C-alpha cells in the first residue's frame, strides 16, 4: 500500500492533492498576522494554490518556464512555488537580501518570465533592474503597502489576482480541468526547482533538482526521524536555501505537517515559543546566541536562582546526554535529573521554545562542543547533518544514540559517500542534482559521468564510521614535512573559546603552524573587569601579558586535543600573536559574511607573518584603517609573539575502518 502510494504521488502537486484528500481538515500552514495566528487547512491551501496557478496561466506562464520567488517566509510565496509546479513551470527562489546587482544576475541567468515578490522593497529592486531582464513580463506582489501609485501595467497584487482567478475557475469548468490534466501529467523526472547557490566563490550557479531528487530525499529524511503530520516547524530561513525548501516545503508535503510563518524576522524567537515547534533547524549561531543570552541573564539573577541553575546544569552535564541516549544511569542521578527538569530544564526549554522538540538539527558550520552538549544535556535532541544543495541537502546524518559533537554522522539513507584520494568527500544519491543551469562546464567539473559529486570539502571517516569534515578541500594545505594543514579546523577549535573572536592560521608549505588571534572585546573586557586588569584601549588590552597567558592556555588545550588526532597532530600551533586591532570587513579583512580572507590578511600583515616564522619575539606593524564614517587613519603597534608547547602525536591508524 505504502509502496504503491509512493509511486503514485511522484510530484509535489500530486502530494498536495493527496494531503487535501487524506487530511483535508488538518492545518497545513500558519502565519502570524496582526498579532494573531491565521491558519489554512490542506484543502484550503489546495484551493488557493489552484487559483494561484490559474492566475499564473492567465499571465502566460507555460510549462518549462521559470518564475522567480523573492521575499521572506510568507504563505503566499510558498504557495506560488506550488502554483508554478502545478503548471509544470519551475520556481526559482532568490535570496531576498541580495542587492540589485546580484539579483539582476540570477534573474537574467534564469530567464524568469514572472517575478513573485513580497513587498515594495522587492518591487523597487526588480523594477530598478527591469531593463536588464528582457524576458521578465509580469511582477506579482503580496504586501500592497506603498504600491498604490505605481504603474500597474505589468504589476499585479496577488490578492486581486486570486480573486479574479477564483471567479474564472467557478464559471469555467474547463479551466479547472486543464489544471487537473497538468497535475496528472507531471512526472517525477520533471524539473521541480532551480536553487542558486549563494556563490561565495564566483558567480552563483543554478542547481537543477527534479521532483524525484527533492521528494525522495525529503521522504528519506522524514523516515529517518519518523516525522508525521503532527509535527510543527517554523519557517524562517531564506526560501532560496535548499534547507528551507526541504524542511518547510518538501517535507511538509511528504509528511503532512504544519509550517508556521513568523510575523516578522525579528519575532522568530517569540513565535517559536508560541507554536512549540517539534522539528527545528538552525545554524550554529542561533544556538550560540540562545546560550549566551541565558548565561548573561543568569549573571543578573538572584543568588539562589543562580546557584540552583549551576547546580542542576552540573547534574545535566553529568547525566543528561546519557539519559537522552537511553544509556544506563544511576537511580540517584535519574531522580536529580527529574527534579532539575521541573526546576530548571523545563522552564529553560520553554523560554527557548523547545519544550515539544522531537529533533533539532544544526548544520552549515562546525558547532562548538560546549554549545552542542549544553542543549543535549537539557534533553533537546540536537543533531548534526552534513548537506549540500547539489545533494538535495542530505549527505550524512547522525542517527539517534550515535551523536557526537565533532562529526556529522553516517551517510544518510540511500546515500553513498567515499573519500577521494586527495581527501575530498564525494557522494552519490537519488537526491543528486541534474546539472547546473546553462553551465555544462561547471557541471562536468562537479559531477562525474557515473553520478558521483565532488563536494569541495575535505574530510575523513573516524573509527566508528562517522564522517568528519575538516575544511574546504582547496584550503587544505600540506606542511613542509608532509603533514596535513587544515586551517579552518585549527581556527574553529580556537574560536570555540569565548575569549577568542577570530583566528587566522598559517602553515601551508611551512615548518610549523602559527596564527593570529583576535580577542573578543566583550568576553575579555568582562574578564579584565573581574580580575582588575586595567586597560585604556582595545590595543592595550590585546597586548596585556595576562591576556597573552590566557590565550596561551587555550592554545595549549587545543594542541593537546590536536595531538590526540593522528591526522591532525601535525597542525599543532607552535607560535601565535594577538592582533592589535579587530579584523573588519570595512578594511577588507573579512568578507561581508564575516569569513576571514586569509590571503589578503597575510599580505597586509606581512611583517607579522615574517615575525611568526623568523623566531623574533616581537614585531612592528603599521596598518591603515577605515573608520565607520569613511575616514582613514593609521594604527601603529608593536606586537609580541608567543611560543607554545607542542605534543607528540598519538600514532594509531584509524583510516581502515572507513574503507
Amino acid at each position, binding site marked *: 500500500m505504502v509502496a504503491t502510494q509512493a509511486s503514485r504521488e511522484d510530484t509535489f502537486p500530486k502530494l498536495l492533492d493527496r494531503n487535501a484528500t487524506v487530511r483535508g481538515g488538518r492545518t497545513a500552514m500558519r502565519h502570524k*498576522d*496582526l*498579532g*494573531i495566528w491565521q491558519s489554512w487547512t490542506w484543502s484550503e491551501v489546495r484551493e488557493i494554490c489552484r487559483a494561484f496557478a490559474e492566475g499564473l496561466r492567465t499571465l502566460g506562464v507555460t510549462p518549462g518556464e521559470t518564475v522567480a520567488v523573492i521575499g521572506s517566509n510568507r504563505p503566499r510565496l510558498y504557495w506560488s512555488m506550488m502554483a508554478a509546479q502545478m503548471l509544470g513551470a519551475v520556481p526559482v527562489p532568490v535570496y531576498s537580501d541580495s542587492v540589485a546587482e546580484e539579483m539582476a544576475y540570477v534573474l537574467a541567468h534564469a530567464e524568469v518570465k514572472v517575478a513573485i515578490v513580497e513587498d515594495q522593497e522587492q518591487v523597487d529592486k526588480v523594477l530598478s533592474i527591469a531593463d536588464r531582464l528582457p524576458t521578465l513580463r509580469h511582477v506579482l506582489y503580496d504586501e500592497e*503597502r*506603498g*504600491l*498604490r*501609485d*505605481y*504603474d500597474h501595467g505589468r504589476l499585479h497584487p496577488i490578492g486581486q489576482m486570486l480573486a479574479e482567478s477564483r471567479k474564472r475557475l467557478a464559471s469555467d469548468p474547463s479551466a479547472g480541468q486543464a489544471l487537473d490534466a497538468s497535475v496528472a501529467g507531471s512526472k517525477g523526472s520533471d524539473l521541480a526547482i532551480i536553487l542558486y547557490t549563494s556563490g561565495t566563490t564566483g558567480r552563483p550557479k543554478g542547481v537543477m533538482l527534479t521532483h524525484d531528487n527533492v521528494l525522495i530525499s525529503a521522504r528519506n529524511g522524514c523516515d529517518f526521524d519518523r516525522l508525521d503530520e503532527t509535527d510543527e516547524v517554523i519557517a524562517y530561513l531564506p526560501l532560496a536555501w535548499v534547507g528551507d525548501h526541504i524542511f518547510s516545503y518538501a517535507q511538509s508535503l511528504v509528511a503532512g505537517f504544519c509550517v508556521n510563518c513568523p*510575523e*516578522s524576522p*525579528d*519575532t522568530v524567537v*517569540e513565535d517559536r515559543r508560541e507554536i512549540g515547534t517539534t522539528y527545528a533547524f538552525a545554524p550554529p549561531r542561533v544556538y550560540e546566541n540562545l546560550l549566551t543570552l541565558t548565561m548573561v541573564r543568569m549573571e543578573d539573577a538572584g543568588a539562589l536562582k543562580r546557584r540552583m541553575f549551576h547546580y542542576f546544569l552540573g547534574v545535566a552535564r553529568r547525566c543528561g546526554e546519557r539519559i537522552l541516549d537511553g544509556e544506563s544511569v544511576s537511580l540517584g542521578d535519574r531522580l536529580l535529573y527529574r527534579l532539575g527538569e521541573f526546576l530548571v530544564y523545563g522552564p529553560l526549554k520553554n523560554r527557548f521554545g523547545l519544550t515539544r522538540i522531537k529533533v533539532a538539527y544544526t548544520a552549515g558550520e562546525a558547532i562548538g562542543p560546549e554549545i552542542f552538549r549544553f542543549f543535549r544535556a537539557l534533553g533537546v535532541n540536537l543533531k548534526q547533518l552534513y548537506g549540500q544543495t547539489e545533494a538535495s541537502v542530505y549527505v550524512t546524518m547522525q542517527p539517534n544514540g550515535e551523536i557526537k559533537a565533532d562529526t556529522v554522522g553516517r551517510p544518510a539513507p540511500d546515500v553513498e559517500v567515499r573519500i577521494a584520494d586527495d581527501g575530498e568527500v564525494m557522494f552519490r544519491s537519488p537526491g543528486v542534482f541534474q546539472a547546473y543551469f546553462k553551465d555544462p562546464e561547471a557541471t562536468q567539473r562537479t559531477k562525474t559521468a557515473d553520478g558521483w559529486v565532488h563536494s569541495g570539502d575535505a574530510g575523513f571517516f573516524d573509527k566508528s564510521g562517522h564522517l568528519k569534515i575538516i575544511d574546504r578541500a582547496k584550503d587544505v594545505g600540506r606542511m613542509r614535512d608532509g603533514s596535513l594543514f587544515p586551517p579552518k579546523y585549527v581556527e574553529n577549535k580556537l574560536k570555540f573559546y569565548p575569549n577568542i573572536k577570530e583566528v587566522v592560521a598559517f602553515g601551508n608549505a611551512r615548518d610549523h603552524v602559527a596564527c593570529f588571534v583576535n580577542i573578543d572585546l566583550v568576553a575579555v573586557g568582562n574578564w579584565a573587569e573581574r580580575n582588575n586588569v586595567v586597560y585604556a584601549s582595545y590595543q592595550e588590552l590585546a597586548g596585556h601579558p595576562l591576556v597573552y597567558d590566557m590565550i596561551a592556555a587555550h592554545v595549549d588545550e587545543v594542541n593537546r586535543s590536536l595531538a590526540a588526532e593522528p591526522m591532525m597532530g601535525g597542525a599543532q600551533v607552535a607560535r601565535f600573536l594577538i592582533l592589535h586591532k579587530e579584523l573588519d570587513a570595512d578594511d577588507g579583512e573579512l568578507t561581508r559574511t564575516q569569513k576571514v580572507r586569509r590571503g589578503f590578511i597575510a599580505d597586509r600583515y606581512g611583517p607579522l607573518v615574517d615575525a611568526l616564522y623568523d623566531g623574533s619575539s616581537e614585531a612592528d606593524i603599521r596598518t591603515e584603517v577605515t573608520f565607520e564614517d569613511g575616514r582613514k587613519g593609521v594604527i601603529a603597534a608593536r606586537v609580541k609573539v608567543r611560543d607554545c608547547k607542542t605534543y607528540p602525536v598519538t600514532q594509531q591508524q584509524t583510516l581502515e575502518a572507513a574503507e
Partner: protein
Amino acid sequence: MRAPGSDKGQMAGDVLLAVDDVSLSFGGVKAITDVSFDIRKGEIRAIIGPNGAGKTSMLNVINGFYHPQHGRITFKGETRQRMRPHVAASQGIARTFQNVALFKGMSTLDNIMAGRTLKMDGSFFWQLFRHGPAMREEIEHRKVVEEIIDFLEIQAIRKTPVGKLPYGLQKRVELGRALAMEPDLLLLDEPMAGMNLEEKEDMSRFILDVNNQFGTTVALIEHDMGVVMDLSDRVVVLEYGRKIADGTPDEVKRNQAVIDAYLGVPH
C-alpha cells in the same frame, strides 16, 4: 523616494488649516509675530527655522495648547480663537513631541491603545468588568492598533515596556500612538531628532507612507534639511517669530532671506 506617478501638487486640495495673523507672546517675549500660512489637505508641510524661531510654539498654537493673543485659526472651515488640546484632538489633530512623551512603564501595545482613548465610548461600568460591549469595542480598537503595529513594523516590541526601547524606536511608537487617533492633521515635532541615518530613512518612509496610504495631512518641524527638502510639498520658514519665506522646497532654497537666516549675513 516618492513613488512614480504621484503628483502631490495636484492632489493637495482645499485648505485644511489656516493660520491668520497669529501673534503669541509670553510677558514681554514675543514668540510669534503676525504669522499667516495655510496647510492644504493631503500635503506634507514643513515648518523650519533656526533655534528659537517659534516653530514649536506654532505647533502648540495649532493644537490649542497655547492661545495666541492675536489672530485666528481656521480648522476644517471652523474659525476659533481659543481651543483646548483635547478638543483639538477630538476634532482630528494628533501630534508627537520633541522630547518623547510616552508612558515609559507601559508596553508598546498599551501606549498605542492609549491613542484610541478618545474613540472609546463604552460605558464605564462595562469597561470596569471588560465584558459585553466594552469587550467587543476593545477588540475593534485592538484591530486598528495591530494594523498600526504592522504598518510601523514594530511587531517584535509589541509587549516590551517602551522605557526599555532605544530612542529611535520610541519615536516610532509615539508616531503609532498619534496614528491611532486616525487624525486628519498630524503634527510632528522633530520626528528625526537624534536618529542615525538608517533610522531617519525608516522614519521618512513611514511619514511618506502615512501621507500616501491614509491621505493624512502632515505638518512637521525638522532640522535635517535633506529630509525636509525630500519629504515636504511646501515649506514655511520662521525666524525670530516672523515668517520670512513660504513656498516649495526649491523656492525656499533659493530665497535670499532664508540663506541669510541659516548661513548668517556678513556685517
